[in-house]
C-alpha cells in the first residue's frame, strides 16, 4: 500500500467485519472456506443478508433476492441466518473495542468507529493499534476484519472499505486529498443514486471534480446543506466526533412469507415468533421499550403500520405478542393476502432503573421471570431448545407454506 507510513494524527479507526454473517457461519463449517456461501432467508422470497467474497465475485450482494442470487451463483451454499450467534460475536467484538478505548461508536452489529487518541501512549501507534485489533478479533472470534485509519470518520470508513477483505489502510492527514480526489463521487458520505445522477449532469464524476467546483454552484444544484456538506467532504473535512453510546432507537423483526398468507391464525403464529425474537433481543441487550409497532405489507405491496404506546416500558414476549396481535386483529382484515409482517419496539430505554407499571391480578413472578429462564436455557442449549408451544409443532421454515 502506497499510503500509510506516517500515521501521526490518525486517531480515528473504522473497524468492519468482513462478510460478517457469512464469516460467523464458516466458523462451524470450515469445509466451506473458499467457496461461495450466502446467508439469507431460505424461502423463495428471502433476501441475501451476507455473502462470502467468492459469492460476491459472482455478482451476489446484500439485499438481493435469494432467487436472483441462486441464478448468479448456482453452486453457492445457502445458510439460514442465526441472529443469536451474530449478536454474540458482535458483543464480543464490541467489548474488545471497549478494552482499547471508551470512545466506541457502533454503527451496526459488525462495524464501529473508535477514537484512539487517548490510547496511543498505552498501546502504541494507530497502525499498531489497528493491527492489534485485527489480530485480537481473529484470535477471539475466528473471523477477519478490515481497519481504516485516518484523521476523520469519513476517510477512515473509506479506508476500511478499500482495504477489504482482511486488511488495514492508513491514510495520513497530508495524503487525504491524494487519496480522495480520484475516487468516484458515490464514495462520498450522503451521495446516493439520485445525488450521483445530479452530479453526473454537472459533469462531476470524481471527488476531485467536486473539490474544484465552487460551493455556490454545488449549492444551487443540490441545495444549501448538501452542497456545503459535499464540498467539505471532498476536501477531507469532517468535523463529526466519535460519539459513544448512541443508543439504538428501536428493535424490530419482520418476516416476508414464502407465499402470501390470508389466514389470521397463521399470521398470529408468525407474530408470536417475531415477538419472541424481539423480546429476546430486548432482554439480552437489557432494554425496555414503550411503543409497539405492527407492520403489515399486503400482496400488492401497500404497507401499513399501527402502533400502540403502553402505560409503561415492556420487554416481555407475551406483552409484545398480545399488543401486536391486538393491533392486527383491530385491522379487521377479511382474508387479506399478506406478504410481510413485522414487529418493532420503539422508545427504548435501559432496563436498569426503568419503572414498570404493574398489572392488576397478574402474579408477581410471572411471564417475565419465565422468559428470562427460557433465555438462559436457549443461551446454553440453542435457540430451538425451548419455544412457545404453538411454534413447536410447525417444522421451521415450512409453517403454513402451501
Amino acid at each position, binding site marked *: 500500500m502506497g499510503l500509510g507510513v506516517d500515521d501521526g494524527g490518525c486517531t480515528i479507526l473504522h473497524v468492519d467485519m468482513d462478510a460478517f454473517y457469512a464469516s460467523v457461519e464458516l466458523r462451524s463449517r470450515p469445509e466451506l472456506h473458499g467457496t461461495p456461501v450466502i446467508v439469507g432467508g431460505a424461502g423463495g422470497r428471502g433476501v441475501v443478508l451476507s455473502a462470502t467474497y467468492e459469492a460476491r465475485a459472482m455478482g451476489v450482494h446484500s439485499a438481493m433476492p435469494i432467487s436472483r442470487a441462486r441464478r448468479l451463483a448456482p453452486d453457492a451454499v445457502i445458510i439460514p441466518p442465526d441472529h443469536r450467534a451474530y449478536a454474540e460475536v458482535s458483543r464480543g467484538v464490541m467489548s474488545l473495542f471497549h478494552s482499547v478505548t471508551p470512545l466506541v461508536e457502533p454503527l451496526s452489529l459488525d462495524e464501529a468507529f473508535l477514537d484512539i487518541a487517548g490510547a496511543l501512549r498505552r498501546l502504541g501507534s494507530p497502525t499498531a493499534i489497528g493491527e492489534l485489533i485485527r489480530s485480537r478479533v481473529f484470535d477471539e472470534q475466528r473471523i477477519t476484519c478490515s481497519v481504516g485509519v485516518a484523521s476523520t470518520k469519513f476517510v477512515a470508513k473509506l479506508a476500511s472499505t478499500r482495504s477489504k477483505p482482511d486488511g488495514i489502510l492508513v491514510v495520513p492527514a497530508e495524503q487525504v486529498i491524494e487519496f480522495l480526489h480520484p475516487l468516484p463521487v458515490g464514495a462520498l458520505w450522503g451521495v446516493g443514486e439520485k445525488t450521483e445522477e445530479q452530479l453526473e449532469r454537472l459533469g462531476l464524476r470524481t471527488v476531485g471534480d467536486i473539490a474544484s467546483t465552487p460551493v455556490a454552484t454545488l449549492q444551487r444544484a443540490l441545495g444549501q446543506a448538501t452542497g456545503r456538506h459535499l464540498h467539505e467532504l471532498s476536501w477531507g473535512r469532517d468535523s463529526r466526533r466519535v460519539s459513544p453510546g448512541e443508543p439504538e432507537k428501536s428493535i424490530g423483526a419482520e418476516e416476508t412469507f414464502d407465499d402470501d398468507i390470508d389466514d389470521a391464525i397463521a399470521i398470529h403464529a408468525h407474530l408470536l415468533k417475531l415477538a419472541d425474537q424481539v423480546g429476546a433481543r430486548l432482554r439480552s441487550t437489557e432494554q425496555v421499550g414503550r411503543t409497539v409497532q405492527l407492520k403489515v405489507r399486503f400482496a400488492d405491496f401497500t404497507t401499513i403500520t399501527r402502533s400502540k404506546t403502553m402505560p409503561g416500558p415492556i420487554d416481555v414476549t407475551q406483552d409484545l405478542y398480545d399488543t401486536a396481535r391486538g393491533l392486527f386483529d383491530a385491522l379487521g382484515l377479511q382474508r387479506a393476502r399478506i406478504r410481510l409482517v413485522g414487529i418493532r419496539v420503539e422508545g427504548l430505554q435501559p432496563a436498569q432503573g426503568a419503572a414498570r407499571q404493574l398489572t*392488576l391480578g397478574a402474579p408477581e413472578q410471572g411471564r417475565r421471570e419465565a422468559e428470562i429462564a427460557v433465555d438462559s436455557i436457549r443461551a446454553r442449549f440453542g435457540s430451538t431448545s425451548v419455544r412457545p408451544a404453538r411454534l413447536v409443532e410447525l417444522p421451521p421454515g415450512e409453517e403454513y407454506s402451501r
Partner: protein
Amino acid sequence: MKFRVERDVLADAVAWAARTLPSRPSLPVLAGLVLNVSDEVLTLSSFDYEVSARVEVACDVEDPGVALVSGRLLSDIARSLPAQPVTVSVEGTRVIITCGRSSFTLPTLPVEDYPQLPAMPPASGEITGTLFATAVGQVAIAAGRDDTLPTLTGIRLEIEGTRLVLAATDRYRLAVREFDWNPLSTGLTAHALIPARTLADTAKALASSDVVSIALAPPGAGEGLIGFEGNGRRTTTRLLDGEFPKYRTLLPNEAASIALVETAMLAEAVKRVSLVAERNTPVRLSFDGSEVVLRAGVGDDAQANEAVEATVDGDALEIAFNPNYLLDGLAAIDSPIARFSFTQATRPAVLTGLADVSATPSDEYRYLLMPVRLTG
C-alpha cells in the same frame, strides 16, 4: 308536517338526539335525525345500529307527519337560532325552518330507508339522575380506552336486588361503585357490560332528571341491549360481549398500613412534584409516621420532592404510582380526606374517601391502584 316549538326546547331535544349521530355513517340515512310529529308531541330520534336516542317534547302541531333531515345541520341550526318560537314544516322534499326573521331550507332524506329503532326493554328499576351521573363518572375514569381490548372499554353493571354495582378497569386500576336503587321487581339479579363512553355521556346528559330508569332486557327478549330513560329522553345501547375480569378477587381483604391525607393538599403536591416526572415515570410516595414524602425524577434528571401531612397507621412504606392514575383517583373519591390502604409496595393500594378523619370508612366507592415497580 308542520309544528311550532320554543327555540330552547328544540335545541335541547336536538342536542340529545344528535349525540348518537355517527361521525362516519355507514349508510347516508344514518346521518339524519327523524322528526315525527303527532298528538301535540314532537319525537326526535337517531340510531347508528349501536346506540339509539329518542326524545319527546310538547309542541303546537299544525300538521302531523314524519321527516328525516341532516342531524348535524339541524343541531347546528337549532343551537344558533334566536330565542323565539321556531316553525318547522315540510314542503315537497324540503324542510323549512323559520325563527324570527331567519329561515333555513334543508333537503330531506328518504325516511322510508331509515332503520327501525330497537324497542326499549321494560324498565328494571330507578335511580336519581345526579346519583347516576356521579356514580358512572367515578367508575368511567378507570375504563380502558384501548379498542384492542374491547372488554375493558366497558363498565360492568351488576344488579343484586336493591344493590347496584358499577365497575371498570383498564388492568392498572379498578374503580368499583356500589349503591342502593329502586328495582321494580323483587329479587332481581342481572349483569351487563356497557360501553363506557356511551354510558358516561348518557349519565351526564341525564344528570338533571329526577328519575332515571334503567331497562335491562331480560334473558330471551331483546338480549344484548340496555336502555336508559329520564325526562322524556331515552337511549338504548348494545352491550359488549366478553367476560369482564373477576374483579372481586382483586380487592384486598387486609391492610398492613392505612394512611389518611387531605385530598386537595395531596393532589396539589402530586401535580407539583410530577412536573419533573417525564412521560410515564412514576411519583414515589414514602408514608412514615406523620407525613408522606413525594418524590419524582431520578438520577441526573430534574428532581422534586414535597412533604404532606398524613396520619399513617401501620408499617412505613414506599410505593410508586403513575401520577395521572393517582390524580384520577383523588378526584374520583370526591371527599375531603383520602384514605389509602396498603399491603405491599408491589400490591394494589385501595383509595377511598372520607368526610373527615374520624368518619367510618365505607366501601361505597373504591379505587384500586396498581403501583409501579422500580426495577433495580
